[in-house]
């Protein structure tokens, strides 16, 4: 592992990239009402790798969607990189996602009609900006796909596709990268590659990563572990081994 880049490390260690205050989310009405989040307050400082875990229906995905500006809280506020999200319209939210947020999805979600390089720079293309060639170079080396750049997604393995997706998420140097079950569709070897890549993006590039997962081994790569249960945070602690995480999950269940 090479030395962390000084430029990418945030100047203030306590610099908060994204925070939620008293966030609730209710779906449906009346008898069909579902309380996905029941008052969550949490903040994510810069340059750390966060894992959010919890059983199905615990609200972990909802929390991530709300933090990323894909969904709106019923009550409460979300601040991302100094911007209060709940007051933004669709247009501003779209621009914020484009410039400030990176996404990695479980099913890769690459555009099949574009080759690997075009997929990586897609957020920049959408914004109508030229990629910084130096940054792009580092990124391509980091994901290890230099010889695959002209291949289309159908010609890449699942692990390779997910590495392209991570490079795409990092391309705009966003304030936060959200990863939604990034290893959910991968075998263990590819999973390791992807998790190490996310880890390196934090250590080397000072990226802030928030990952939702239900794989304890994946969560063990994180610096911080949040456990959700029934719409509330039930655990907020530091890094842990997979075994310790499994114990925590058992306690929470």
């Amino acid at each position: 592992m090479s030395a962390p880049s000084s430029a990418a490390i945030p100047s203030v260690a306590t610099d908060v990239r994204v925070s939620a205050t008293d966030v609730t989310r209710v779906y449906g009405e009346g008898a069909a009402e579902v309380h996905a989040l029941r008052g969550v307050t949490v903040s994510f400082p810069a340059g750390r790798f966060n894992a959010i875990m919890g059983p199905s229906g615990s609200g972990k995905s909802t929390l991530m969607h709300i933090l990323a500006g894909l969904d709106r809280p019923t009550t409460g506020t979300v601040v991302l990189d100094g911007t209060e999200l709940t007051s933004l319209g669709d247009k501003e939210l779209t621009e914020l996602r484009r410039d400030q947020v990176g996404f990695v999805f479980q099913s890769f979600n690459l555009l099949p009609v574009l080759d690997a390089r075009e997929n990586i720079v897609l957020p920049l293309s959408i914004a109508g900006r030229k990629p910084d060639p130096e940054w792009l170079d580092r990124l391509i080396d980091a994901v290890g796909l230099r010889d695959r750049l002209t291949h289309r997604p159908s010609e890449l393995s699942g692990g390779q596709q997910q590495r392209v997706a991570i490079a795409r998420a990092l391309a705009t140097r966003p304030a936060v990268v959200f990863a939604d079950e990034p290893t959910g569709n991968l075998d263990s070897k590819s999973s390791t590659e992807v998790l190490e890549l996310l880890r390196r993006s934090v250590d080397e590039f000072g990226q802030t990563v928030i990952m939702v997962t239900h794989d304890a081994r994946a969560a063990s790569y994180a610096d911080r572990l949040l456990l959700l249960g029934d719409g509330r945070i039930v655990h907020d602690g530091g890094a842990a081994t997979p075994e310790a995480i499994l114990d925590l999950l058992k306690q929470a269940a």
Partner: protein
Amino acid sequence: MGKVAFRGLFARKLRLALTALAIALGVTLISGTYVFTDTINASFDRIFQASNKGTDASITAREGVSTDQGTTPTLPQPLLAKVRAQPEVAQAEGSVFDIATVFDAKGHKIGATGSPSFVGSVSQLARFRATTVKTGRFPRSSGEAVIDAGSAQREGIRVGDRIAVQAAARKTTFRVVGTVQVAGVDSFGGSTVVDLVLPEAQRVLGKVGRLDQIQTAGRPGVTPVELRAALRRALPPSVVVRTGQQQAAKESRDIRDQLGFLTTALLAFAGISLFVGAFIIFNTFSITVTQRIREFALLRTLGASRAQVMRAVLGEGLVLGVLGSAVGLALGLVTAIGLRALFKAVGVELPSSGAVIATRTILVSVLVGTVVTVASALAPALRATRVPPIEALREGVAPTLKGPSRLTTILAALLTATGVALMCLGLFGHQSETAALSLMGGGVAATFLGVALLSPYLVRPLASAVGRPIQRVAGITGRLARENTMRQPGRTAVTAAALMIGVALVTFASIFAAGARESIAKAVDENLTAGLVVQSDDGFSPFSAGALAAVRRVDGVGRVSPIRFSRAEGRGPSQDLGKPSVTGVDPATFRSLYQVEILQGGEQAMRALSTGRVAIAAKRFAEDHDLHPGSVVRLRTPTNAVIGVRIAGVYDDKGGLLANLAFDNRELAREFGETKDSFGLVGIRPGQNLQAVERRVKAVLDRAYPATDVLTAKEFKDQQSGQVNQLLGLIYALLSLAIIVSLFGIVNTLVLSISERTRELGMLRAIGTSRRQVKRMIRWEAVITALIGGLLGAVLGTILAVLFTRPLDGFVLSIPVANLLVLLVLAGLAGVLAAVLPARRAAKLDVLDALAYE
């Protein structure tokens, strides 16, 4: 299983509506055409029934050859005395009736544009009268006239007002003494009718001593059939005797035959729309079958047979077909009104009185629409049956369509080749006109199908080429649009091919029209040496020979050469001649006013025409029928005369004025009964000012023969081009239906593709693509598809036009490049229009829902 089919059908209402409309529009034109023409026919039937109701037997001259617009043969007036002398005849009376031009007191032409006006004689006997008086009375003396109440109302003419009439005789003024109705209706099917006393009508129509018809009533106890038999025995074979009912039926049939062309033409355009609609149906079913592969596989695992799957898909087609046809049928009734308006807009007013909806209209509309839909769904249905049950268990990999198989490609190439061969056979072979037209029509359809099947191979390069500049302008949205159109080349190809057909036909018509205009211009410039041309004010009807006689006396006018047209049928020395069209010329003056090259027979061939029973033949006609100077042909003329004619020469008329055979005008009057001129070529004396002479000629014509116009060569050229443009406008309007259908196809394909790409769109939105960018992407996708269709159509249309104009003598091929470029731009804009709805749908997708979409 039935339930499954209908659930699939009604689950997507937009798709259902769009696909049903694709069929409905073609059906609309079918039912609209039938209702339209049936209504016209019915109103004429009523008129003819009414006008013959008091007639037991009717006598007319036997027509040797039916002519489209030439003069029909007449009876000699003394025949009436012979008829009256028959013991079975109680009453008999003669009448005349022919086309004329009617003017109001101020000299303005009255009558609906395009619909002819008539002058007839009023019978002295009420039982033979077609009309009844509405106001005033019937005419009693030569200065009096009645006019149909419909025209009187439209033009504000009242009893006591003056009107003028011009036909064979010079313009004559009459006092209106009454208005009349036919069968209790004011309008004579849209035409203006003026009735005069018989001698005056004969004079006006140039039929002094002649009759068009003798109506008879039998003595009590003599049936119409007995009367007919008696008259047939007593009268010469040159006349035809019919019962009153037969006469009415014959008149109805004649109108039907004349309108038959219109019906066929409109149905042909309906066929084009349905053909395009079939592409849309095929594409829609192909896409939905592909999207539902897993569903079919699941049904198969649960024990559904192949036949059941097939029935499910075809059942969907059946419901869709019936639904679309029903909608089309209903729209057709509305369209019948629209068609009337369309024809009126281009100057043809047709009569109507209450829409006639025949059983045949309903049957044909529903049957054709349904059969086309089910047939188009057949290939996709067959593919649905081939889905192996294992597909249901396959996870992750979305099943995709394979490209065209080798077999399809070979078949497509064969189909294209067959199409081209059929067209060539139709164009260059020697067969009847109908056979040639069927061959060409079938050939074009086969070529379109073949090219459509081959087009998946063209989609990639074309999309790539068309998309490149778009990508440069639009950036990532253009890039994605371009890639999306190339993603499923087969789907894009069929969508574009539907538009291709419409664009190809528009291109074809444009090139044909441009060529026709060029050819006319060239003919006028190179062949016409006359300074002025006299013609009917509608541009094509024959007009009184008196007009040119009057023009001859105008100061400054030199030679005047009338041109007449007629038809004949007959045999050459070695083969049948069919029905050659015939031109009459004045041999003494013709060649000084019009350049025509005599290929065989030498310079004296033209002079020989004056000796009678001599004709000269057009180059192509002579070649096709093995005619040479000295050949003798036997012709039957419209007056039923059979004459032996010697061919004196062969000419090459690059200007296209002379028809298959040319005679002396006197021969046309004598043997063909044609005494009217169709064109007059007028030379100017040396040293005279053209405009001044034109003004003087115009003044003379306006005074005595206002139904004729005089034009300078340039005006004549413009006027003829104007007629071409008018026809072109009508064709464009009818083809626009096929283009609209193909736009539904683009909308449908986009909507289906978008639903397939929901997750992708969700991701794009999640990583920061704005709604506007999504819309733009869809729009460009539609534009690229439309441009592919436009380009293919323009190229195919050009090739067809070049091919089809090969056999035309003297046709100047001219490609209207600017028009074609405009056409392509319009195709692109049509794409933008087609994208409005799909783009809005795509932009409205909820990001989270889309990401979770399976």
